[in-house]
Every structure is written in C-alpha cells, then in structure tokens.
C-alpha cells in the first residue's frame, strides 16, 4: 500500500500554464517532501514543508499542506518544457513510501 497517493496520474499542459498536482497520505508525518524524476533514474528533491507549516514557496513552486485532511498540493507556475517529468510526494516521519507519481508533460 502507498503512503502517498498523487493525483492526477498524468497531466498534459501547454508551456506557460500552471500545473497543480495533489498528494494524499495516510499516517502522521513530520514533514512532506516533493521530488521530481526524469527518465526513471534518481529523484531530485524539490521542496520540503514541515507539519506545522501551511504553505511554502520556492521559485516557481508553491506547496501547501493540510494536515487535517492529510493532503498536500504542488503548484508549478509558468511551466516550461523542461518541467516535463514525474513528480512524487514523500512523507518524512511516516511510512517511508512514495506514491505512484504524477506524470507531467509540458508541451512547447
């Protein structure tokens, strides 16, 4: 079973549009992290939000966390073709499990 469940499973948008993806988790967490993966190899850390935070920004990324609903969202603004990748959430302090990810495709 997955600790993190991302949705949608796949998202296709045009360059310049915003992309929003969501994550739900099952057990209590210390923090929630978002990762990006290109071509099935190593994952790259994007942003970490702690359980006592509600919103965090980093460049074109905005992440929110609702611990009462056990959910988080990642917003990528002004998307670029280079943002095409799979995105995963991971709950630190809970079960150390990733979800299936959201596959984002940004068309030029």
């Amino acid at each position, binding site marked *: 079973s*997955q600790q*993190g469940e991302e949705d949608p499973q796949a998202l296709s948008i045009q360059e310049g549009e915003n992309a929003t993806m969501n994550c739900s988790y099952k057990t209590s967490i*210390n*923090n929630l*992290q978002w*990762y990006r993966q290109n071509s*099935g*190899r*190593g*994952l*790259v*850390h994007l942003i*970490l939000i702690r359980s006592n935070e509600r919103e965090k920004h980093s460049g074109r990324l905005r992440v929110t966390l609702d611990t009462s609903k056990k959910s988080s969202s990642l917003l990528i603004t002004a998307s670029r073709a280079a943002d095409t990748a799979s995105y*995963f959430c*991971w709950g*630190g*302090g809970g*079960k*150390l*499990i*990733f*979800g*299936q*990810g959201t596959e984002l495709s940004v068309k030029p």
Partner: protein
Amino acid sequence: GAGVSQTPSNKVTEKGKYVELRCDPISGHTALYWYRQSLGQGPEFLIYFQGTGAADDSGLPNDRFFAVRPEGSVSTLKIQRTERGDSAVYLCASSARGVTGELFFGEGSRLTVL
C-alpha cells in the same frame, strides 16, 4: 563525495545468481535508504538505515534480500537466487537528518535478471 554514488549502474545476471549492489552515500549522512522502482511505478521502499543499524526493514520482500551497512557509511544490498521479478532500478538515498531532512538520491542501479 559530492553525491550519492551507486555501482554498478547496470547489471545483467541470470536467474538464480547472487547479486550485490553498492551505495556510497554523501559523507557524514547518517541515514541511508534503499528503494526499488519498476517501470511506470513509484519507488518501493525496501530498507532504512540510521547509522549501522536497520531502523526499518519492513520493505524487504522476502529473505532473499538483505542489506548491510557495517561502518555506517557504504551500504550493500544483496540479492540471493535472483528471479526475473527482481528486475528493476534499485535506488539509494542518504540524508543528513533522517526522516526530517531531504533525501539525496543516487542515479540507481538497473538490474536485469534474464
């Protein structure tokens, strides 16, 4: 080292053989994780080390899989009597602050069992 290093990057073996995959974490990182990932799937948790000890090995699928980290740095994932279903990319990550900090991933070891 500058990042997490995994060797080999690719390994092709025959069914029934023994395989070792190595992970060299970022220097000073006390936490080390192993995941495996099949095509189109998310990373599947295998085992988490804090220092030399396995803090959580609940993800190891069966007793053919074993991992060690004898000196609290390099880790080796060992797979006995490999099966075709073991084919996947095996990912290693390390963290300076365990589950409270970000994970740094290696590029993975792609295992193919023929």
